[in-house]
Structures are given as structure tokens and as C-alpha cells.
């Protein structure tokens, strides 16, 4: 085992996923974008250590990785809450009250755009179109879609995730 492997910050599952992924492509580097996202799912954000490890595994420089990572809006460079709430306010959602939903989340959570609650359970983001225009207003909590929202539904969603957090579940 090389020293890099012993120092891996990836779980064995993530490392295995990465190893399988790179074999699929004619070019190893093609694994870069999805891999960064999968690493973020596990570690929480794109830390310097993630950048170094991905660079090593793909065989490019950390600077190259950073250059690519900063392009993609889903990748973040500091931790989010356990449940990252992404509220779409783009046109179709806006027309059906997307901003009211965003305001309601801000009010209920006491945080603004890109904010994280003190207990780190929730973070909030205003995002661009998430592809749920016909079911607006819509949000994503991590990767889960919630659509046709009202303030009452928002309250219910927050309660549900709080309960899940209390149980230690994802």
C-alpha cells in the first residue's frame, strides 16, 4: 500500500466506487466531475484534502482539480447543514410563489442565502431552475425533491427532517 492510500480520507466504499468509475472511461479524467460530487456527499464539502486525494487518484494537479471544481454550482468549499435546502426561485417557481417559500424558510430557520443553522441541521440556498417547473414551487433537500409547496407543507417538511435528524438518520 502506498502512503497516499493509507492516508486516504475516502471510505473504502467511496474508494472502491472511484476505482470502478475510472475504469469505465477511455480517459481517467472523465471521472472527475461525478467523483467530486460523490466525495462531497460523503465528506460534506470539497475540502483541500478532497482536492489533493482526487488529484492524486486522477493523476492531475490539485490546481487542475480546483479549477474544475469551482466551475460547478453544486460543489461547495465549506460545510453545509445536514439537510441542505435548495429553494428554486427561477421564473416558473417565482410565478407560483417561490420567493414566498424562500422567505418562509428564512423566517423559520433564521438564516439567509447560504446560511447554516447553529445546530448545523439545516442550511439554505436560493438556487436556479431545478427542473420541476410544472410542479412549482419546488425545492430540493439534499437530493430529494419536494414540489407544489405551500407554507404549511414547508412547516411539515422541516418537522420531518428535524425528526430524522434527532434519530440520527440521513
Amino acid at each position, binding site marked *: 500500500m502506498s502512503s497516499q492510500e493509507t492516508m486516504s480520507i475516502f471510505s473504502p466504499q467511496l474508494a472502491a466506487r472511484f476505482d470502478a468509475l475510472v475504469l*469505465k*472511461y*477511455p*480517459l481517467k*479524467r*472523465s*471521472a*472527475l*466531475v*461525478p467523483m*467530486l*460530487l460523490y466525495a462531497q456527499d460523503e465528506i460534506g464539502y470539497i475540502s483541500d484534502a478532497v482536492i489533493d486525494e482526487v488529484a492524486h487518484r*486522477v493523476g492531475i494537479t490539485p490546481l487542475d482539480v480546483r*479549477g*474544475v471544481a469551482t*466551475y*460547478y*454550482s*453544486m*460543489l461547495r468549499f465549506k460545510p453545509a447543514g445536514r439537510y441542505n435546502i435548495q429553494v428554486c*426561485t*427561477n*421564473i*416558473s417557481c*417565482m*410565478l*407560483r410563489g417561490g*420567493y414566498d417559500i424562500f422567505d418562509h424558510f428564512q423566517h423559520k430557520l433564521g438564516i439567509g442565502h447560504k446560511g447554516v443553522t447553529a445546530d448545523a441541521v439545516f442550511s439554505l440556498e436560493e438556487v*436556479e*431552475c*431545478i*427542473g*420541476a*417547473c*410544472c*410542479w*412549482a414551487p419546488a425545492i*430540493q433537500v439534499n*437530493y*430529494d*425533491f419536494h*414540489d*407544489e409547496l405551500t407554507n404549511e407543507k414547508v412547516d411539515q417538511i422541516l418537522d420531518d427532517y428535524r425528526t430524522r435528524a434527532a434519530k440520527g438518520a440521513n
Partner: protein
Amino acid sequence: MPRLVSHPDEVKIVTRRFGQGAANIDRYVELGGYESARKCLANGPDYIINEMKASGLRGRGGAGFPTGMKWSFVPKVSAKPKYVLVNGDESEPGTCKDHLIFLHDPHSVIEGTIIAGLAIGAKTGFIYLRGEYRYLIEIMEKAVADAYLKGFLGNAIFGSDQEFQVIVQSGAGAYEVGEESALMESLEGKRGVPRIKPPFPAVVGLYGGPTVINNAETIATVPHIFAMGGAAYAAVGSERNGGTRLFGISGHVERPGVYELPMGYNLKKMIYEVAGGVRGGRELKAVVPGGSSTPVLLPNEIDIGMDFDQVGKAGSMLGSGGVVVIDDQTCIVEFAMRTISFYQHESCGWCIPCREGTDWLKKSLTRFHAGFGTMKDIDNIQYLAENMMGRTFCPLGDAAAMPTLGFVKKFRKEFEAHLDGKPCPFAKHVDLAVV
């Protein structure tokens, strides 16, 4: 779970298997799935391309380029491997049709990819989905794994001597990656910036090899064309616009949803009958006919057939088929501001007219909506937009400029109503943070 809708005027071809458990491979096969791929395998590339040309299918991503012709441009002989790329980066505001295809009929995308591969002589296909669609990526990955187990994908597909591999790829958040060459960059592990053209992807595409890239809806339509015959498919639509389209109707309508209607279906009827009319019995103010980048239409401009040519003649574009309906309680300046704010956010920064233009437009419109605009700003907004048009590597600059020009030209009075510190007549959200 996104709600499925239905209307008697629908012609269900692409949506035929929606809501019937077709994500399960056995169910898909039971419903006639993978028969088209077998048929194409038996009949060869010339048959495939001729049938595609006969179908009149035009690209569902927005540009409306004839699919059969696109496939025929790929050189028969190539030193480098050829590729099929499926664009499922669906990010144009107002568009959510591919979402349903991946959810309800993932195998139709795989089958269409196989057929495209057989047509051009490719051995590998990539299905690229936006990263936000994680649950759909998982559905697609499961479908691909099942297709391998059945021998529909792999080194000897359907027991033949032909090889075809499919890889599902996740993006990580970028509208620009929906542009074909930017998608290739992203798939090569780079920033999603567009490439200069020519060369076009059919000659030099992914990894430098000849590549066919099609929208997910286009690809999902392909198996149905071979099931019903190209001519029969063409007959469903209007002249030079074969088949049906998945129209996503959103905004201020009673029954928003994705409806599959024949190409050329009347827009007015689509809004008032299919989608149940303007919500709450209000008056219609404007319609964005094909996703946020298409110029706005006024109520007296919507008695038109929804196909690439007729919407073009009306001064807009059919685009992605995302129909956004706006009622009389909406501030068009705010709507324009939100639209341009999206393009400003998504501009990749590669071309200066787009990077700087979208930024200036956003600033002007935001200031304007806040009541701090001047008469000169209205002309400046128009001047900026006009100078972005056609001056960028990819269509994002145009996509930002075109709707802006439409808003300013068609709603100039409403822009003027925001002058001289007057509060927005519809004021709800005035964002001063970015002024």
C-alpha cells in the same frame, strides 16, 4: 413525486409507458420495449438513417435540427472511436420533460442510444444527467445494469457480434453544460466551457472522435419511430415538424404539467383548454413559449401552431417546449430581471460579450426595478442586448439577449412606469443588494 397529467387531445407516443412501471426492464419488454433496437440491428445503418429522415424528427433540445440528417453527417470511417451522447442536462428554466422520461421510461433512453450507436457505428454511448437529478441518475444506472444483465448492452448485444456500452454520467450543476461542446468538456473532466466551431461534433467531438449528441427527449422518441414507422410518426405532426412534443406548461395556469401534443398544436388552445386557462380566471399578460431564452409573446400573438417554423414566424422560438404562462398581476420588469439574473449566474465567462453583457443587464434591470432607472437605461438595456447577439462561441449570450429584447420592445410602457423613483406597480420583491 412529480404529478402526471392527462388531456384528451394528447397523442401519447413518447409518454405511452408513463405510469406503467416501465422502469422495470421486464415490464418495458412486455410493453414492446427493445423490439426497435432488434429491428435496427437486423436492418443496419442505412435503414435507420432513412427511417429517421422520414420521421421528420427535429432536435427536442431547442435548436430543432433534423435528427436523421445530424446522424448522417458522421463519417462512416473514422480512425478514432465514435460516440453517442445523450444530453440530459435539462436546465432551461421552464423545462422539466426529461425529468419524467428518466423517471418513467429510462429504457427508452437506453434503447434510443443503442439505435443511434448502430446508425453511426459507435460502440459507446454516454447518458449525461444534471447532478441535481440524482434520484433519476440512480434510476438510469439501475436500468443500464439491468440491460447489461439481459445482454441488451455489452460485448454482444442481443446475441449479435455487435458491441455497445452505455455509461451514465452525473453533472454537478451548470446550465452551460447543456451546450453540446461544453457537455463534452465536462465529460472529459474539465470546466464546462464551449468549444469553438467548426469543427462540429459530428467530425470532432468527445475525446476528439466523431460524436452524435442529442437531447434526451429526442433519443427517447427514437424507439417509437421504429415501432410505428417513420412516415406514420411524421404524419402525427405538422409540415416539416414530425411527431409529438412534450410541452411543459408552467406558471399561471390552472393545470400545469407535461402534456404530449402533436407538433403544430395551437398555443392558445394549449393554454386555455389543455392547461385549463389562466389561474383564478385572471387575464393573460404574456407567454414565454419555449423556455426562458425564447422571446415573449403577447396574448394577441398566441393563436399559432406550436412547431419550430410557426413559432419562428411569430418572432420567437419553440425552444425546449417549456411554455411559461404569465398573468396580469405579474411585473414584466421583475420577470425580465429574474430571467437575466439566471443567465448572469450561468454565463461561463468564456466570451466577454456574454460575461459582461449579462452582468450589466442584471445590474440595469435590478436598479430599474428598484425605481432608480432612467429613460436612457431602457435604450441602454436594448443596446447591450443587441451587442451580445451573435458575438459569443455558444448560444448562451443569445439566450440572454433575445428574451431581454422581447421584454423591452413589447413592454416598453411598463418599463417607463418604473422611472423616476416610482415604486413598482406590482412590487413584491425589490432586491437592492446587488445595485
